[in-house]
């Protein structure tokens, strides 16, 4: 069953010389996928993920997430839609620096107006799942890059989203942290059936993916499923 359907997607950035970043993409993503979007720098990976995450709007084409055509949402409906349906892990600047790891995870649930008790319990569960239960009271500045990204994954899952988008989540990490983060994501995918779609340049990350979508010049070059 597909949760994301992308039809005839185009995105042109208006500039002195207009940039055709996405030039006609048709794709579907199903529940429980662990997919990598790969391609050379400037190929349109970030632009593509931003559009399926509702952070940017297409110039042409449609994105349907669970029966909702997100192009029909107003900007404020879009924010609310993201809050309840999509988890995000960015390359950096994921966390609120003045809050502790636990508070950062709780924060998104508080935005969803869930009871405080539930927020705290789930935040602790998720921090445990990413192996950071003993750093719950630490602020991001005192965590390593890898630990920060693990908190970001916990935060992305906290809102119980349909799927998690991660744009180069390991770009700033060393090998050990990359493997660790990947293992955690992989586990969550297997055990909890969380859908992950991530972009990457990193061979080690690509090797873990079960589907690899290759984009070049804003078009899908190849789309292969890998049996692991």
């Amino acid at each position, binding site marked *: 069953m597909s949760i994301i359907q992308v039809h005839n997607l185009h995105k042109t950035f208006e500039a002195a010389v207009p940039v055709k970043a996405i030039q006609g993409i048709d794709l579907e993503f199903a529940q429980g996928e662990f997919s990598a979007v790969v391609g050379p720098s400037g190929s349109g990976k*970030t632009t593509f993920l*931003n559009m399926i*995450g509702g*952070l*940017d709007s297409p110039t042409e084409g449609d994105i349907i997430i669970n029966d909702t055509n997100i192009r029909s949402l107003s900007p*404020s409906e879009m*924010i*609310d839609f*993201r*809050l*309840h349906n999509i988890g*995000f892990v*960015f390359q*950096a*600047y*994921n966390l*609120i*620096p*003045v*809050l502790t790891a636990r*508070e950062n995870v*709780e*924060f*998104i649930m*508080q*935005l*969803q107006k869930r009871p405080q008790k539930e927020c705290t319990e789930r935040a602790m569960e998720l921090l445990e799942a990413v192996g950071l239960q003993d750093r719950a009271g630490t602020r991001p500045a005192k965590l390593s890059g890898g630990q920060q990204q693990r908190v970001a994954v916990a*935060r*992305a899952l906290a*809102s119980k989203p349909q799927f998690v988008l991660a744009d180069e989540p390991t770009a700033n990490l060393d090998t050990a942290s990359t493997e660790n983060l990947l293992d955690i994501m992989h586990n969550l995918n297997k055990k909890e059936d969380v859908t992950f779609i991530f972009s990457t340049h990193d061979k080690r990350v690509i090797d873990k993916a079960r589907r690899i979508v290759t984009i070049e010049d804003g078009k899908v070059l190849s789309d292969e499923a890998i049996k692991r």
Partner: protein
Amino acid sequence: MNIVRISWKNIWRNKLRSSIVIGAIAVGILSGTYCVAIILGMIQGRVDDAIHKEVGHIQMHNPRFVTNYETQYTVSNVSDKRAEIQQITQVKSVAAHTVSHIQLSTGYTGSGALVTGIHPEREKEISDIYTCLWNSTGTYFEEDMYMPVLLSKEIAENLLLDYYRIDSSFFVTCAHIPDSVTGKLQSTKIYRSKTDFLQYVKSTLSSELLERYKTDFLNAALFFKTGKKISYSILSKDKEVQNGICKIAGVYKTSNSMFDARNIFMLDSDLRSLLHIETDKTHEIQLVLNDTENVPNVMSQLQSLYPNLEIRSWKELKPDAGMQADLMNMYGIIFIIIILGALGFGIVNTMLMVVLERVKEIGMLMAIGMNKKRVYSMIMFETVLLCLIGAAIGMVGGYYLIQATASGIDISSLAQGLESVGYAPVLYPQLDVLFFVQVSVLTIITGILAALYPAYKAIKYNPADAIRSDV
């Protein structure tokens, strides 16, 4: 985690910058509240003087007396009226006055004045003039003498009743002047005129030293002779000119030289017989209440009791003080608004820097689902809290500074100009709680206004661009 808590924590991310802004606000509010306290203290002092030394809270007259002070227009049944008025619970004391124009003259010159005939003991209940004897000259009608009159220092000087001498008390008054200067001066005879006295000082010291200490020397050497005779001329109620001799009982001085230039006092019994006013009639009934707030209430009670009398409050009798009192609160508020307005621009600038620094963070927050209203409130709370911390420090500082100087700041060296418009030479800074509440409200408003533009900028970011940007 509510938004206010995040805003509060955000303030302390850049401690130096926040401290500078907080410091600026604190200094602004501190100096603002203190200036306002001084202005209000001055006005309050003027109002207190107007009420307790000059006109009381309320005065009642025959309406025709008010126009020209013609002495035949009296109020009758005075003792009944006093008893009735005393029944009103808010009234503290009542006293009756006879009042007339009078012409005074000495061998050298003459001066007109307004003379008020009083019963000294009753008058003490409604007026503090008895505490205002200048340099302990004479008494408040305590000494037994023929036709005693209490002059103001100003009128006594106009009548050339001033004498000068150097004696032991001169050196006490001049203790602050170096001995090397005063040491050269010796006890002197009495000088009949200012010029002669200054001539002596000039010949003993130098004209340069004289210029420097002239005011001090004159003040210290000046005295008045009680018991000295002056002649008067006054018109009785049947328009007969009465001439005679009265004697200086004492000399007073208030901080309002306009009042001093016009008013002298006699015993009611003396003035009454000069004017031929019957015992149970008078010109003026003056009331002092327990509380200035009760003036309107008592006014209306009196108006229904005595519809035929002209009844006026201190605000009507002393419109200058009345107007100041009415505007008092507004002065303070306008002053603070100006200060906060100026600070506001600095705050806008700081918050714009804050927003610019956090582009990526704000983009991330909007990306993960924090709506614009919440982002807006986050910036707004941060601004308001920043302002409130500064204002709170400023107000606490202002409060302690006011407390520390509440016993008075003497500015008499600069104060001659002030006295000529009725203000005391000692400042008593004062503020009420309401003012601090108003400052807090204004601070919150300033914070909200200062946050408008930075918060608007913050929510205008497109999350995708914000996260991508390389700031």
